[in-house]
């Protein structure tokens, strides 16, 4: 079997990182950052946590390229959904102004 076995030590480190990330996001939520930085910080921490889960807990780092392509396709379609639909909703009142 060419299956890659992730060591328990790495799983522990990821768990630790995820718990620290959760703590950080709660603390950052209480602080008032300028502009839209609060949501940017919250989403950045969430994305880092998600990346760790996908790469290590879900073994993506050790998966075949085909699995990568399938996962990235999800992000691609999600990007299309957000970009195209928001480009409609956020510009609807431009003409009436």
């Amino acid at each position, binding site marked *: *079997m*060419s*299956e890659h*076995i*992730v060591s*328990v030590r790495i*799983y*522990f480190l*990821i*768990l630790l990182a*995820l*718990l620290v990330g*959760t703590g950080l*996001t*709660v603390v950052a*939520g*209480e*602080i*008032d*950052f*300028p*502009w*839209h930085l*609060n*949501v940017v910080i*919250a*989403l950045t*921490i*969430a994305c880092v*946590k*998600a990346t760790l*889960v*996908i790469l*290590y*807990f*879900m*073994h993506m780092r050790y*998966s*075949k390229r*085909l*699995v990568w392509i*399938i*996962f990235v*396709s*999800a*992000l691609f*379609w*999600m990007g299309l*959904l*957000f970009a195209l*639909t*928001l480009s409609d*909703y*956020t510009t609807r009142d431009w003409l009436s102004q």
Partner: protein
Amino acid sequence: MAESLVVEHEVHHPALQHHFENLEQQREAGTLGMWIFLVTEIMFFSGMFFAYTLYRYKFPLEFASASNHLSLQLGAVNTVVLIVSSFTMAFAVYNAQVGRQRRLVISLILTIILGLTFLGIKAVEYRDKYKDNLIPGQLIPGHKYSPATIHLLPGASPQHTEMFYWIYFAMTGMHALHMVIGVGLLSVILFYSIRGRYDPEYHNPVEVSGLYWHFVDLIWIFLFPLLYLLGRHIEHGGTPLH
């Protein structure tokens, strides 16, 4: 004919399906299939995340006000519970890979208990919202949505807070449904683990169920900051931006 089949099956691992060349190929096909399913799940949740984005953009003050009514403590505890359950699930997959039967069973039981703990805490949160008349619409007979208990930020319109609760219940409800399915799935895996079906050569069902469990954790990693934290800094006198 029957004899030749028997001979063939004696050579192979009993779990190998006849349409696969070997267990390696079978494992890769299983994992790939699960990822394709998870892609459809990401698409499904994307629609709801988009609805959230749009209405937060439209009603930033109302969303912040309604969000502050949620219990940050319960939400944060649930986040930790789910992250630890993801760890015990990863540990279960590890034990299946190295063939540690007892530890596999124990880590699966722990994962199920943590999953049920999450659902229990979620139920407490839902009950609190019911008590405060924050179930949107008129889903429950005799119960009508009322934003009376929400501390509204200056400029927020009371009736638009209901949109936040529609999205809150749709997203966390759908997430909780996935948790219930996950607990059911892991119970089946636990049953077969106790019966000793999985070994270092064949454990793809454990792995694939683990992928599903981690996916449910992933959704919560985004739901927690988006639903529970979005108005905290405004309550502390910060600027009300979306």
